[in-house]
């Protein structure tokens, strides 16, 4: 049963600390998305990659956020330094471009910055 995995599932950290979230997309999917979900803003697209190359990171605060795909099986989202307003659930999703456009979501990382 192919699925997107994310680690950690929960993260509590203090303001100013670095946070790294990891995602393993479904094998064979060539497009990876990072979303952030809050009650106030809903689900926002932060960045996405195709074939490991960043296509759009316009939704991401550039000064503190960075997203990479070191290889086809790993996507990372890093926040440095973290702030309380970064508290949210971060989702990774993967899809097969040229396929059905259906996105498969991971379980999310719940980040709390105190």
């Amino acid at each position, binding site marked *: 049963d192919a699925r*997107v995995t994310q680690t950690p599932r929960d993260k509590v950290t203090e303001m100013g600390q670095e946070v790294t979230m990891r995602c393993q997309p479904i094998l064979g999917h060539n*497009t990876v998305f990072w979303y952030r979900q809050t009650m106030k803003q*809903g*689900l926002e*697209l932060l960045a*996405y990659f*195709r074939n490991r190359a960043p296509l*759009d990171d316009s939704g991401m605060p550039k000064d503190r956020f960075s997203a990479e795909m070191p290889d086809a099986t790993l996507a990372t989202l890093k926040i440095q330094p973290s702030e309380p307003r970064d508290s949210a659930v971060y*989702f990774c*999703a993967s*899809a097969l*471009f040229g396929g*059905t*456009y*259906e*996105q*498969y*979501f*991971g*379980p*999310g990382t719940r980040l709390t910055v105190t």
Partner: protein
Amino acid sequence: SQQGEEDPQALSIQEGENATMNCSYKTSINNLQWYRQNSGRGLVHLILIRSNEREKHSGRLRVTLDTSKKSSSLLITASRAADTASYFCATDVSGGSEKLVFGKGTKLTVNP
């Protein structure tokens, strides 16, 4: 900014009743998708309808699309307690169908 806006924000019904959720969007689309999110979980794709389609069925789900009104509806028939979840519509951004913009969702509660 949000492309899709769901209505109502919350809906509470009894098991066995039908649930209808609506979505309105602002710009032209290639397709519209509906997703479900159970509490504390990731989103799950339910159904996709293309801009040249008017209605689509999948099991107990029926989706309609009216591009002239820029609106879609999701009907869940014979609802079950397990259908309790939030439902989101997502539209593609012009220029590429893989990038989606999600609405804020309708929270559906089905009471046993």
